[in-house]
């Protein structure tokens, strides 16, 4: 079997430091809070979708049905999440990257204010208390991860951003402070952008990885729900997830959050703005807490 080179929108060559970052960020043991989030998958199966009942007999037939159901959910969830969240990852990443570069007029205050606006818009566009909760929980976990897991310990050599003289550690501390004070929600797409930009990961790679990890978390959740076998999950990850994420990346490349859209700008004939494309998924995700028994938080 021939492995094709990894997807690469901006076509830079995959240098060693980027490869290393990807290995770190894709680690299943990374404390991101994603372990307890099923993005509505558990609710999907509980409500009779996907063709298999949870907690029923595990057997050859049931697991196969689960695979179809999981794939159906995966396709719709990745597509909808890509459409609603990736513009925010992209826009937030641009703000942080510009701040790190030392762009004129974008000091700490201005950068945080801009991120705050993106965060508030994402909150206004995510009208589902379960999704909001899962998003902010994971977002804050990523900021904590940066502070406690990725900042330089004493005595270590300089990282990619230290030459600029910008202290991302202070930036993240300030962000967490604002979240504690209720001035910021700390949504996942924005925090993911902060984390990856601070680590020096390039924008499109950051978006791609975010979608990949969303898909991977869904597959892990399905395995834990016993609706997908562990080997089947790996098969899907290798053969199905990649074309799916690549397709969504292509479709979502021109998207931006639309922060500065005035009333007239609310039209979107060119399909360049975030949107919810799966109303059924919304309802099922919001109903997560109604489940009599459940193993996930969302």
């Amino acid at each position, binding site marked *: 079997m021939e492995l094709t080179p990894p997807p690469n929108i901006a076509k830079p060559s995959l240098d060693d430091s980027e490869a290393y970052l990807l290995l770190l960020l894709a680690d299943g043991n990374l404390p991101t809070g994603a372990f307890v989030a099923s993005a509505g998958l558990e*609710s999907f199966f*509980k*409500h*009779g*979708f996907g063709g298999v*009942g*949870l*907690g*029923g007999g595990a057997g050859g037939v049931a697991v196969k049905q689960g695979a179809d159901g999981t794939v*159906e959910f995966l396709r*719709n969830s990745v597509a909808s999440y890509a*459409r609603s969240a990736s513009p925010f990852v992209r826009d937030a990443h641009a703000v942080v990257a510009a701040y790190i570069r030392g762009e004129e007029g974008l000091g700490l205050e201005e950068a945080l204010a801009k991120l705050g606006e993106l965060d*508030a*818009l994402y909150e*206004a*566009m995510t*009208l*589902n*208390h*379960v999704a909001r909760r899962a998003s902010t929980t994971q977002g804050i976990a990523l900021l904590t991860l940066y502070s406690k897991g990725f900042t330089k310990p004493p005595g270590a050599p300089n990282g990619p951003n230290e030459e600029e003289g910008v202290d991302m550690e202070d930036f993240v501390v300030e962000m967490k402070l604002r979240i504690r004070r209720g001035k910021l929600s700390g949504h996942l797409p924005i925090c993911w952008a902060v984390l990856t930009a601070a680590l020096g990961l390039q924008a499109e790679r950051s978006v791609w990885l975010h979608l990949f990890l969303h898909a991977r978390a869904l597959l892990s959740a399905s395995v834990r729900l016993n609706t997908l076998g562990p080997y089947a999950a790996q098969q899907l990850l290798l053969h199905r997830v990649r074309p799916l994420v690549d397709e969504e990346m292509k479709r979502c490349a021109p998207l931006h959050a639309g922060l500065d859209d005035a*009333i007239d700008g*609310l*039209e*979107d*004939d060119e*399909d360049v*703005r*975030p*949107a*919810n*494309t*799966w*109303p*059924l998924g*919304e*309802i*099922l995700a*919001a*109903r997560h807490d*109604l*489940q*009599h028994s459940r193993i996930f938080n969302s």
Partner: protein
Amino acid sequence: MDNVITPVPQVPLRHIFHGRGKAVLNASGNTASFSELSYQYPLKLLSPRTVVDGPVATVYVLSYGGGLVSGDRIDLEVDVGERCSLLMLTQGFTKVFRARGKTISDPGSDGAITRQRLSATVRSESLLLLLPDPVTCFARSSYSQIQTFDLAPDGSAIILDWFTSGRMSRGEVWELDRYRSVNEVQIDGKRVARDVMLLENLVPGRVKSRLAPYGCYATVFLFGPAVQPVLKSLRVEYDTIQQMQLGAPEPFIWSLSPLEKGKAGILRCAGKETETVRVWLRTALAEVGKLVGKDVYDKAFV
């Protein structure tokens, strides 16, 4: 203005229309009246004279022929004055017909997309009840709707936005080209909600597989002091639900999410049949009858 009979103009095929309209409601004492109620083809506004107790008014938003032809555009501005209550209704489904190409009369236009825009201001101590019939997007239709609501800090609104899968009797199920609906709510100038619903059949059958088995989806936004009793009754019912494992999807499903620290809410529901959703909504929002009077509320969800 609403007593003038406007003759339907003779027009060439595929001429697009931009129907602007404006409704301004004011209270004086214990009654409410429109200081303005203007409209242009293909939009028509009708306010029936009914006996009500209090500054309450009803307005029907109609389109000629009961449907919107490709390229038509409706622009409606509504101002609900202080202490007023306004119920906005339609008479029957808003049918969106199949998209057609560039128009002959205006080749520079994007004749294909049918658009509706509503811009509502809800002033202090007033209530807007937007309870239209659903939008039905026929096969190959392309529809875009923008609704913006500017609420005073103590203004209230119940906004229903719903759509169905098409002419189910013809076996037309989610065969639209594109459906986009934006609802943006601001309270005291601060944006609190921007709901963007987008359905696109980029690949034939995509929307149908995503939305199955439901043929009707609805969203209800609830904001403001006046909606608290309705919100409470919904929450009480929602909190009793204990979802057990189902063998197959139920014919109707609903979710309720608090907004604004519980002072507002968003309800979403879906049903296999539009009628199921209609009946359910009528009961779910019945508390509203106490706000505007049962006679007025009964005109909705007929």
